[in-house]
């Protein structure tokens, strides 16, 4: 199987480590800054960064609607880490405005400030061994995942890696460690058509 056509949103945030991780898996990622860069992509990473800045830039450069439309039409699978995960979450009226492609609440800066950032191994059955080294930087938290959302890894009781139809999100930064298992999982995630998303949401 050839690697899918994958892009990394490169307006603000740590696009470079995502690009390196995807290259390591044999993909040839494209940096996405404008609408034309989305042409032909089946997968797109929204990196870590500042979610307010990323939301501002998505709106400024008219990328918000095309991303949601591509996801809804089953053409584009989305993967967000940290700030990217915030953007993918449920739109509940809070700033920054979310894309609403993943049926989960994502609370910003939910562990505190930078001095409260931490790294910790995360265990999950699908991962096998060794545990995943997870780096949490001013990290958000997932809450109330909907019935169509699968929790793929937890830290204690709380979800840190979740997947819904056509969308994967981590509150940590798999791109900052030399371990591409989460990126490989994303490349294996198929874009999901809206019907499938709705069916899955109904459970």
């Amino acid at each position, binding site marked *: 199987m050839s690697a899918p056509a994958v892009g990394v949103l490169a307006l603000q945030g*740590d*696009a470079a480590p995502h690009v390196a991780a995807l290259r390591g898996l044999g993909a040839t990622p494209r940096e996405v*800054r404008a609408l034309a860069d989305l042409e032909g992509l089946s997968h797109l990473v929204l990196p870590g960064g500042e979610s307010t*800045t990323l939301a501002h830039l998505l709106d400024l450069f008219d990328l918000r609607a095309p991303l949601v439309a591509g996801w809804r039409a089953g053409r584009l699978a989305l993967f967000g880490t940290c700030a990217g995960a915030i953007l993918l979450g449920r739109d509940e009226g809070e700033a920054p405005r979310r894309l609403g492609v993943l049926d989960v609440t994502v609370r910003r800066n939910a*562990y505190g400030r930078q001095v409260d*950032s931490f790294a910790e191994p995360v265990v999950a059955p699908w991962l096998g061994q060794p545990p995943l080294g997870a780096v949490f*930087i001013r990290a958000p938290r997932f809450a109330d995942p909907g019935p169509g959302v699968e929790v793929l890894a937890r830290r204690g009781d709380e979800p840190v890696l979740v997947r819904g139809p056509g969308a994967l999100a981590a509150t940590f930064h798999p791109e900052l460690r030399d371990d591409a298992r989460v990126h490989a999982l994303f490349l294996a995630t198929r874009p999901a058509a809206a019907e499938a998303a709705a069916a899955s949401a109904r459970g």
Partner: protein
Amino acid sequence: MTTTATPTATHENGSTTADPYELKVGLARMLAGGVILDVTTVEEARIAEDAGAAAVMALERVPADIRREGGVARMAALDRVVGIRDAVSIPVMAKARIGHFVEARVLEQLGVDFLDESEVLTPADEEFHIDKHAFRVPFVCGATNLGEALRRVGEGAALLRTKGEAGTGDVVEAVRHLRRIGREIRELTVAPREELMTRAKLLGAPYDLVRRVAEEGRLPVPNFAAGGVAGPADAALVMQLGAEAVFVGSGVFKSDDPARTAAAIVKATARHADAAVVAEACAETGAPMRGSSAAALEPAERLAGRGW
């Protein structure tokens, strides 16, 4: 689940399961492609956040005012830092004087996200910088050349920036520092291994870091531009010269329309290689700060010479 239950969230250094240095450099990487704006009030901080700034630097006075008013420039008043910290959701930085590790501890206590050991403030020590490995909070430091950059990394800086010449609105010194560091890195990458020890001696930099730069062809931590960036064209210039993000000080809140200027600089930084977008951004700014030529400064007025 309490927010204090994580074993690595203790504020003491050295007793964590994780390497806090990875977390420090990690936050620096999250700021890439962004603009960090100097702010002195809660209102300015909110303008910066709304304009898309990736972080703010909480200050008592912007560099242009420090230059004009003179006197000893210290860390900002704590109520000012706390007010700004509580007003925005983006990371908040603050400046401590070179070598003033107590100012740094105080600002760390306030939960500031990043500390700038800055030549813009009056140095507290004319020989030694802060031992930045001893802190849980990450530090950014200025550098004019590769030796200085690697000395600061050796001391624990998680992020570098050019010094430029703060408060002038003249980008020439930031350009000089980016060009020089880039050239010195390229020279190391082609140097035979047996030359690296003597080059480390000449640079005044730790040998292990010199060897790493020679092998990887880049700095061990991100390098941002700072000092004299006054508008969208300056921001795009320093980004194209290899800066990974931009600090903007007096350039925004000394312009005639700060909100527009800030938004335009954010836009030009994100899409710095696209001339059409940079042109739009230039058309959208207010009139820039008038500024002063860095070349016309007396040696004693040059901030970039501070730091050792």
